[in-house]
């Protein structure tokens, strides 16, 4: 199957892209993915300036950091400064990500302060989550150093999480993630524009829910990018950190739900509730760490995203085998997302971008299809209009009419004038109605009356139309009754002096109905052949054009007459 090759192709392409990006060192982390030069991290509760000293023996300190705190505490870490950093002869610095306020000591020297430590929440001045400290040249020697942080975190007590000290060239540490952030915001901008596009499409033209969901999905993704990367340019106070993580988590959950909704509505999956409810339950369980209790924030996000993409992929796969429109494009759009688990952040962006591209492609194909259908409908309309006009140019009708007109002119000029007037009336009415989809019933009756007058002149016999129950405000597609009457006249075999047609109308809450009774002569044995002539095709096409799927038309002999009945569904009038 061709699609498997296409999938492998997409995976290969996106995978290579991801690998390339990683290799080029463009990663949303500070410094490089090399060693962080730090080791032997330890913690102790209490407070003593002695503890800043590099020689201070800290083997009895806690190796683990994850304690609940309610007092001042110290963290010490050893840092190894390599020659290659010094080679560049640029300022060396420390990048510290830490949920606390602190004083930073380098080899016992205070080189920087983040906020102001205190004994309680009111006395502590909250510091930033991310902070950079240049190391004075005099203190930057190759070899081992000790970093000590005198800390308090009363603005986020009971948790010591997320501590990281990184050594590197100072400007590079600041600049590198900002460059990545800048590029990723280009992507964010693209998602924002695509979101607006889909929302506009929803509100202005297509009105299909899946467009709304996809637009919201793009907005959520845009917000996710902002929330993730805001830390590199807005160095927020550390207590905001968990709020930000919570925002990211909820955005991811909303993302997952929207993705599911998009797929469910895009392919009109039956019993959406049966799928949505367990899905939401699963997400919820993941969020509250029931599914995988050892997971941290990142793991939870990864699982939620995987659940979402796998479910969406499975549903799309079903839609593909069910031959639903657009399934192939979206399937290819979702394929790389199955590999999110490998490089979470990067693969998430690339996968979603891939989905967006394929969805845009599917959308434009759908719009093409709609445009084509509209064009075909227009063509059909035009063809009907043409048929209607041509009807009166048919040799049989026109030449016979002209021949009898000549006879009238030569034999009875006054009568001929009336004949011509009747002809003019018919042409005028035809001209007026041919381009319309609906005309007032009186206009149709006027058309029929003028036609019958012309036939009276031509055949020398009397033709009449009687009506009953016609309501002034009622409408009908053009020339339907006219066609039925024409049929009735041409097919009447046998002598007569007068032919009378009856048109009646009645309506109730279910339907409105027109009925034409045409006389049948006993000689009309071929009556049953009438059903599929061009006349009937025209009538059915006109009905379908104006009342798609809401009409019935029956035409058959009944009690010695030919009865044609037109029923139009009356319920739910817009």
């Amino acid at each position, binding site marked *: 199957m061709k699609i498997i090759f296409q999938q492998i192709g997409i995976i290969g392409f996106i995978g290579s892209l991801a690998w390339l990006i990683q290799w080029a060192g463009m990663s949303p982390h500070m410094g490089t993915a090399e060693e962080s030069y730090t080791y032997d991290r330890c913690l102790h509760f209490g407070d003593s300036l002695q503890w800043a000293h590099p020689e201070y023996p800290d083997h009895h300190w806690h190796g683990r950091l994850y304690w609940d705190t309610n007092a001042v505490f110290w963290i010490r870490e050893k840092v190894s400064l390599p020659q290659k950093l010094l080679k560049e002869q640029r300022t060396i610095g420390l990048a510290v990500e830490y949920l606390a306020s602190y004083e930073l000591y380098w080899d016992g020297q205070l080189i920087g302060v983040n906020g102001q430590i205190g004994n309680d929440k009111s006395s502590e001045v909250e510091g930033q989550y991310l902070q950079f400290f240049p190391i004075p040249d005099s203190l930057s020697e190759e070899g081992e150093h000790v970093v000590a942080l005198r800390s308090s975190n009363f603005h986020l007590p009971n948790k010591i999480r997320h501590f990281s000290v990184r050594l590197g060239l100072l400007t590079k540490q600041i600049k590198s993630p900002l460059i990545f952030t800048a590029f990723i915001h280009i992507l964010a901008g693209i998602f924002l524009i695509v979101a607006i596009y889909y929302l506009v499409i929803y509100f202005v033209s297509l009105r299909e829910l899946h467009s709304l969901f996809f637009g919201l999905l793009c907005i959520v993704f845009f917000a996710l990018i902002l929330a993730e990367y805001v830390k590199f340019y807005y160095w927020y106070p550390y207590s905001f950190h968990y709020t930000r993580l919570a925002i990211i988590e909820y955005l991811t959950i909303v993302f997952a739900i929207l993705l599911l909704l998009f797929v469910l509505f895009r392919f009109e999956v039956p019993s959406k509730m049966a799928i949505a409810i367990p899905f939401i339950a699963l997400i919820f369980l993941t969020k509250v760490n029931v599914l995988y209790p050892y997971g941290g924030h990142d793991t939870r996000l990864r699982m939620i995203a995987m659940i979402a993409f796998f479910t969406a992929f499975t549903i799309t796969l079903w839609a593909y085998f069910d031959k639903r429109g657009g399934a192939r494009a979206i399937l290819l759009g979702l394929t790389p997302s199955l590999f999110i688990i490998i490089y979470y952040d990067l693969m998430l962006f690339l996968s979603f971008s891939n989905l967006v591209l394929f969805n845009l492609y599917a959308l434009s194909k759908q719009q093409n299809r709609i445009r084509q259908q509209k064009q075909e409908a227009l063509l059909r309309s035009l063809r009907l209009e043409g048929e209607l006009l041509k009807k009166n140019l048919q*040799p049989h009708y026109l030449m*016979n009419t002209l021949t009898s007109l000549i006879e009238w002119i030569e034999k009875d000029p006054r009568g001929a004038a009336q004949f011509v007037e009747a002809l003019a009336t018919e042409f005028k009415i035809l001209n007026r109605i041919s381009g319309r989809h609906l005309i007032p019933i009186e206009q149709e009756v006027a058309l029929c009356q003028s036609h019958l007058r012309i036939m009276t002149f031509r055949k020398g016999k009397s033709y009449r139309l009687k009506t009953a129950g016609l309501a002034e405000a009622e409408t009908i597609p053009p020339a339907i009754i006219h066609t039925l009457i024409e049929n009735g006249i041409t097919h009447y075999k*046998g002598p007569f002096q007068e032919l009378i047609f009856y048109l009646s109308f009645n309506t109730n809450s279910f339907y409105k109905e027109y009925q034409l009774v045409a006389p049948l002569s006993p000689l009309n044995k071929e009556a049953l052949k009438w059903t599929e002539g061009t006349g009937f095709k025209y009538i059915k096409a006109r009905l379908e054009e104006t009342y798609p799927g809401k009409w019935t038309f029956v035409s058959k002999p009944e009690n010695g007459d030919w009865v044609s009945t037109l029923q139009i569904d009356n319920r739910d009038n817009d």
Partner: protein
Amino acid sequence: MTKQSTILIVEDEGTIAERIRRLSIGILGSKSYHFIIKEQLDEAFYYIQKNKIDLLLLDLNLNGEDGFNILKKALAYDFHTIVISAYDDQAIRAYEYGVLDFVAKPFGKDRLQLALHRWLNQQPKANQAIKYLSVTSKGVNRMVAIEAIIYIKGAGAYSEVFLQNNKKVLHSKSLEKLQQLLPTTFERIHKSYIVEIKNIQRILIYPGGRYEAELIDGPALPVSRSRYKGLKGRMI
């Protein structure tokens, strides 16, 4: 009292039927002609079977095979048929089957006069190619290709049509009437014979002024003295 000729008009539009009759009376006069109008085809054919007519003026909806089937039936009879129709693009095909004339609607007196004089004065039909002769035998109608005709022998009111492969059919029309319809490659060599020129091998002259046309594929046919010169001229 001179014998009246009967002209049958088949036309379902009353006004037009009247027109045809009125104009025809103006052209031919009413004394020697008797006009019958039938509106329905089956009525018309019923009348034809029960009565002798001399000319058929037929309005046909030639817009389908039905019309042509009826035309073929009519052309097999002994009287000429003039078609009056709204479908003038079918004229050529009508001529191929052997109508004497095709009058397109709408028509004026002059055009109808042209057609009626063709009939009246036994003039040949308008210069259109005929391809078939319509023949009805034992109730079955078939078309005989003109190309297959070698020669025709008159037998009073009928004609014997001799075809290739020693086949022979009887046609209701007299030799004179057939001559009006056949192309000019068919020469009237004798009061009782029409031959297609290309079928003549050579002309034999016998002492005493007797002439014969020897056919490539058939017997020797007599050539009348008055027609010999014309035939010889055509043979060169």
